[in-house]
């Protein structure tokens, strides 16, 4: 069993990267709005399912179908913001109102996809074939490298966005103090819309790269929402690097506990550890990007 350890860890890292990508989606939206997006996993589902729909067994080249799916999901994110979030925002609704609104969205979306696209699990070809690559002592599917590469690019890109661009800083400013942000001339509503577009696009991208590894279905969103949220909280909600690290921790733990304990108890072990981390460090392992003081809340 121990000889499997490197393989398990690598597998854990690959799934962890996906959780991390999803966690990053949570963090982006949280940084701009303090909203916890319980529909985050649905964006991942949409990325995969819409690619399948557009791809249609090769009618359209896969990269085109994937790009179309990411674009369409981004637009759906914008639509959700406009139709479900902005009316609440304008009336300064309580934070939990958003949670339930997005939970409702997270229930409607999979059903719509089931009716409109398919109820079956399906997949599309891996980007660079399926011949496993030998790396050190372990073999890895080429698609796994796509997952890791994309995660790295997204993490670096977002880190740069929030720390080195004025738009990224303006997004953080909105989360800290909406009124003062408006005084700076920051168009608050447009920024919120941008954060939805970003989260949706990133979620869809994650869905596109992960589908060849795991297949996709209308109902895969919720588990990814929960894992992504857990990863974001472990890493310090709002911290981009923390979200990725949180995802990796979760992924590796899950792989190890499924192998050494039982796959039945995988979730129990994973969430048990989350419980312990939260008890020891309630704000997560890393400092949140936007750490609000009691006064600002």
């Amino acid at each position, binding site marked *: 069993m121990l000889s499997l350890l490197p393989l398990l860890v690598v597998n854990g890292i690959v799934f962890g990267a996906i959780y991390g990508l999803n966690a990053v989606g949570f963090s982006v939206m949280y940084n701009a709005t303090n909203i916890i997006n319980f529909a985050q996993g649905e964006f991942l589902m949409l990325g995969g399912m819409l690619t399948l729909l557009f791809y249609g067994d090769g009618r359209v080249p896969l990269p085109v179908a994937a790009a179309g799916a990411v674009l369409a999901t981004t637009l759906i994110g914008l639509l959700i913001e406009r139709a479900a979030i902005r009316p609440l925002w304008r009336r300064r609704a309580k934070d939990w109102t958003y949670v339930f609104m997005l939970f409702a969205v997270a229930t409607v979306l999979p059903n719509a996809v089931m009716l409109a696209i398919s109820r079956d699990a399906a997949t599309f070809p891996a980007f660079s074939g399926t011949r496993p690559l030998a790396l050190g002592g372990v073999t890895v599917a080429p698609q796994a490298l796509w997952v890791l590469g994309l995660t790295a690019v997204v993490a670096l890109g977002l880190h740069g966005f929030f720390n080195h661009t*004025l738009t990224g*800083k*303006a997004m*953080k*400013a909105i989360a*800290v*103090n909406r*009124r*003062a*942000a*408006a*005084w*700076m*001339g*920051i*168009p*608050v509503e447009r920024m919120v819309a941008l954060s939805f577009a970003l989260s949706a696009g990133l979620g869809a991208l994650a869905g596109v790269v992960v589908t060849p590894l795991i297949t996709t279905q209308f109902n895969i969103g919720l588990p990814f929402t929960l894992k992504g949220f857990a990863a974001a909280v472990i890493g310090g909600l709002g911290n981009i690097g923390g979200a990725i690290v949180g995802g990796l921790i979760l992924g590796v733990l899950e792989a190890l506990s499924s192998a050494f304990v039982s796959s039945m108890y995988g979730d129990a072990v994973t969430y048990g550890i989350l419980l312990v981390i939260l008890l020891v460090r309630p704000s997560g392992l890393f400092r949140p*990007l*936007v*750490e*609000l*003081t009691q006064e*600002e809340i």
Partner: protein
Amino acid sequence: MLAVEELVVAYGRIQALRGVSLTVGRGEYVGVIGPNGAGKTTLLLALSGALPVAAGRIVLDGEDLARVPPHARVSRGVAIVPEGREVFGPLSVRENLELGAYHRRRTAPRAEVRADLEMVLDLFPVLRGRSRQLAATLSGGEQQMLAVGRALMSRPRLLLLDEPSLGLAPVVAAEILGALGRLHAQGLTCLLVEQDATLALEATSRSYVFRTGLVVAHGSSAELRRNPLVEEIYLGSAGSGEC
């Protein structure tokens, strides 16, 4: 430059401003004084767009600002240094200042924004050494300087100041008011709201006295210092200090 006409602002059914009219001319330094609850802060929040106007007009250079959303008012030249500073605590001093110039991101060359940043750091040298520090870790006085600096980064034509001396040691308050005085001497138009009448009447050239949402007196600040009404309004709070 600014004409406020019969302005009414209400919190629900309670009118905080009950028909206030005042003017601020280009290059003027105008004060608004009055006791707690007189509507001074409400006036600035309405001018900056943070509170909706129930009736009346806010005319800036001929344009009614009532329909201009808050984020667009700064590009009309209105900047505010709010009560309680409201700096972005989790962001660095430098980031706070950069965001002050946000509305100019497409119009102003980078070199111009950098030059303004230098100007602010020259005005408040203590901020220079702290530019990478998070704003939340600054002292109250430093945060106030940052709030003024952040507003200046927008290159305002009209600077709204809400109790910039509140809660500060007298020497720090004097430093900040001194800096504002120098800016005014260079031509900046300022509207200063202060509970500390002595301070405000010394800094400004003309003032309005507010009481329960109405203007009860106005005139040159020098005259108002001798006005028995001002003394009467403040008699209750005189000697008890600011809190």
